[in-house]
C-alpha cells in the first residue's frame, strides 16, 4: 500500500488506467490457473494418452514425471507461466510441434472470420439502429424490433446451419464447407468466409441494434439535435454525424464484448462449416487429450478477450471529450 497516497493524488484517468491494467492481469491469472487445473478436471489420464493405451505402468509413470503431471498445481502453473513469458507455449503432445506454431497456422482463419463478422455487425446494426430510432414507433421500427428479437433467441450455429441449407446446399451460391486461403483465391476466400461470418454477425446485430436504437431515441430528444435539424442538414448526416456518437457508449462497450464473443463463437462456427481455424484446433486438442495445446489455446483466447475489453475502455474515454478533459 505504500504508493496508495500517490495513486489517490494521480489524475483520475491515470488511476482508471492503472485499475484496468490490474484487472486485466487478474483475469489472466485466474484463467491460466484454471487451465493448469485442467489436468485434474479432464477425464482420462493424459499420461496414458501420450504413452498409448498399451503402454506399461512404468512407461506411463515415466511420462507422467517427464511432463510434470504429478506435481502440485501451483508448481505446474508457475513452470508453464515462466515458459509462456519467454514466448514458449510448449509442444503439442499429439503432433510434437510447438503450440505457438499450431496457433499461428490456424489464427488467420479465425481472425478473418472475426473481423468480417465484426464488419457485418457494424455495417448493419449501426444504420439499422439509428434508422429505427429516427422512425421510432413506425412500422419499420416495429419490423426491425421483431426481427432482432427473433434472431437474438437463435444461437449462431443454428443460424449457420440454416444459412448453409438455404444458400449453400439450396442455391449453391456459397460453399457449404471447405476453406480457400486468401493467397489461393481472394473471391474464393471471401465466398468461403461469407456464410460463417454472417452467421456469427447476425446474433451480434440482433444484440446491438436495439441497444443503439434505445440510446439514439434518447439522444434525439436533445436540444442539440433540434439545433442540428434547424440547420437544415439531411437525415443521414443528422444520424451519423450528430446522433451516432452521443448514442454510442453502450454500443461501443457491447462491440468490444462482441469482438471477444465472436472470437469464441468462431470456434463453434468453424466446426459447423469445417474450417481450419483455432476452433477446429481446440476440438482436435480436446479429442486427443492434448493438455498443453488446450492450455495454450485457452490462455490465448482469454488474452484476446481481455485485451479487446481493455481497448474498448480506452476508446470510451476517447469518445467523450468531457471525460478526457478531466
Amino acid at each position: 500500500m505504500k504508493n496508495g497516497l500517490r495513486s489517490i493524488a494521480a489524475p483520475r484517468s491515470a488511476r482508471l488506467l492503472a485499475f484496468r491494467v490490474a484487472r486485466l492481469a487478474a483475469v489472466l491469472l485466474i484463467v491460466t490457473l484454471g487451465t493448469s487445473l485442467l489436468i485434474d478436471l479432464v477425464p482420462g489420464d493424459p499420461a496414458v494418452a501420450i504413452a498409448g493405451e498399451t503402454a506399461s505402468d512404468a512407461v506411463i509413470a515415466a511420462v507422467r514425471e517427464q511432463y510434470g503431471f504429478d506435481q502440485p498445481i501451483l508448481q505446474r502453473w508457475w513452470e508453464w507461466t515462466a515458459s509462456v513469458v519467454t514466448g514458449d507455449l510448449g509442444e503439442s503432445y499429439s503432433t510434437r510441434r510447438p503450440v505457438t506454431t499450431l496457433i499461428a497456422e490456424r489464427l488467420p482463419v479465425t481472425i478473418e472470420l472475426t473481423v468480417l463478422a465484426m464488419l457485418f455487425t457494424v455495417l448493419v446494426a449501426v444504420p439499422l439502429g439509428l434508422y429505427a430510432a429516427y422512425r421510432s414507433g413506425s412500422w419499420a421500427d416495429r419490423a426491425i424490433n421483431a426481427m432482432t428479437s427473433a434472431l437474438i433467441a437463435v444461437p449462431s450455429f443454428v443460424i449457420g446451419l440454416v444459412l448453409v441449407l438455404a444458400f449453400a446446399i439450396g442455391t449453391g451460391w456459397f460453399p457449404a464447407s471447405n476453406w480457400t486461403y486468401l493467397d489461393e483465391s481472394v473471391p474464393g476466400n471471401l465466398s468461403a468466409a461469407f456464410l460463417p461470418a454472417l452467421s456469427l454477425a447476425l446474433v451480434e446485430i440482433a444484440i446491438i441494434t436495439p441497444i443503439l436504437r434505445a440510446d439514439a431515441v434518447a439522444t434525439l430528444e436533445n436540444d442539440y439535435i433540434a439545433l442540428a435539424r434547424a440547420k437544415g442538414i439531411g437525415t443521414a448526416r443528422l444520424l451519423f454525424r450528430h446522433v451516432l456518437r452521443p448514442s454510442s457508449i453502450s454500443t461501443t462497450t457491447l462491440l468490444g464484448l462482441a469482438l471477444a464473443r465472436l472470437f469464441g463463437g468462431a470456434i463453434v462456427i468453424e466446426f459447423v462449416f469445417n474450417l481450419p481455424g483455432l476452433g477446429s484446433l481446440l476440438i482436435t486438442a480436446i479429442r486427443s487429450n492434448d493438455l498443453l495445446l488446450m492450455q495454450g489455446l485457452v490462455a490465448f483466447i482469454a488474452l484476446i478477450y481481455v485485451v479487446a475489453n481493455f481497448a474498448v475502455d480506452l476508446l470510451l474515454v476517447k469518445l467523450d471529450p468531457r471525460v478526457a478533459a478531466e
Partner: protein
Amino acid sequence: MKRLSRRSTPALGHRPPEQTAPDGRPSGTSAPLLVVDDLATEFATPGGPVLALRNAGLVLPQGRTLGVVGESGSGKSVLVRSIMRLLRSRGVRHEGSVRFDGEELLTASNARMRKIWGDRIAMVFQDPMTTLHPNHRIGFQITEALREHLPLSPDEAQDRALRLLESVAIPEPARRLRQYPHEMSGGMRQRIVIAIAIACAPDLLLADEPTTALDVTVQAQVLDLLSLHQSRRGMAMILVSHDLAVVSSRTDELAVMYSGQIVESGPTAAVLDAPLMPYTAALLRSTPTVDKAPGTRLHTIPGEPLPPERRVTGCRFASRCRYAVERCLTTEPPLAATPGGRGYRCHLPLDGTAAQEALAANLARGRTAAGLAVTETDVVRGA
C-alpha cells in the same frame, strides 16, 4: 379527419396590415413575411391526444419584431416550434396554416423544409448548455449550416465562421473555433448559438427564451446582440419570453399567450399601455418595473394556469379573472379586432364600461361568476 378546433373565429391578431405608401395609397407590394392562421398543434400521448396550441394567428412583416409572452406552459415554445415545424413529426399533428414568404410550410415536404431551415428561418434555443453538440468543435458547428446552404470551400466557411464569432463579440475567435462547447461559459455559448443562427443571414429568426438560462449580467448583452443583428440584417424576429420587461423595449408587436391560445395581440406599446384583456393586465401588474414606487407589492394572479389540453366551454382565463361574469363561463369569447390593429379574446375588454360594471358587481358579491373570491383591497393594491 376530426378538426382540432372549431374554426369559429378568425385568426387572432390583425389581418395583414394594409401596406400604405407615403401618399396614402395601398402599395400592395410587400406581403408579410410570415402569416400564421388558425394554427393548432396536437400531441399524441399515451393518455390520449393533447392539444397544446389552438387558434393561433399572427402576422409578421419583413424586418419587424414580435414578442410572445406568457407563463410557463402557455404554449410559447410550441408556437415557435410549430411555425418552424421543428417538432418531431411522429405523434404531432398541425392544423391551420403557416405561410412563410407566400409558401405554406405545414404541408411542405421535409426536403423543402431542410432548404428553409438554417438558410431562411433559424432558431435560437433556450438553454445554451444543451443546444450545442458536446462532441463537435465550435468551428464545425458553425460551418455546418454555412456549407449546407452556401457553395463555400472549407477555407471560406472557416473564414466566415471566424467573422461570425467576431460579430457576436467573442474574443480570440480563432482559438474558440477549435474548442469544444464545454470549454466555454453559458453566455459565450449562447453567442455561438446566435452566430450559428445568423450564419446564413436568415429572413426570420425565432428566439425561444434566449436569455432565460443565462446570468442576469449577460442577459442584456445577449438581447442587445440579437437586436443589433436583427436591425443590421433586416431580419424579422420572434422573441419569446416569460418576461415582459425583455420584450417591452425590443419588439414592435406583442402577442400574449395563455393556456395554448394567443389572448391578446397588437403593437407592443399600445398593448402594454392599455391592455384590453384582463390576463395581460394581470401579467403587467405582476411584473416588477423601476417606475413602481419602492415597497409596492407585486400582484400575483390567483389560481393555477389552466393546462392547454383542458377543455372548457367558456373563456380559458375565466377561472382566474376577477371580471368574470356568467357569459365568460358559458361562451368562448370570439376574437375581436380593433381598428388600431389590435386583437383580443374577451367579452369584457378593459377599455369598455362593461368590464368596470362587472368588476363592481363581483366586488359587491365578494366573488366572481367562476367563484373566485375578490375583495376591494386586491383591486386597490393591484390597480
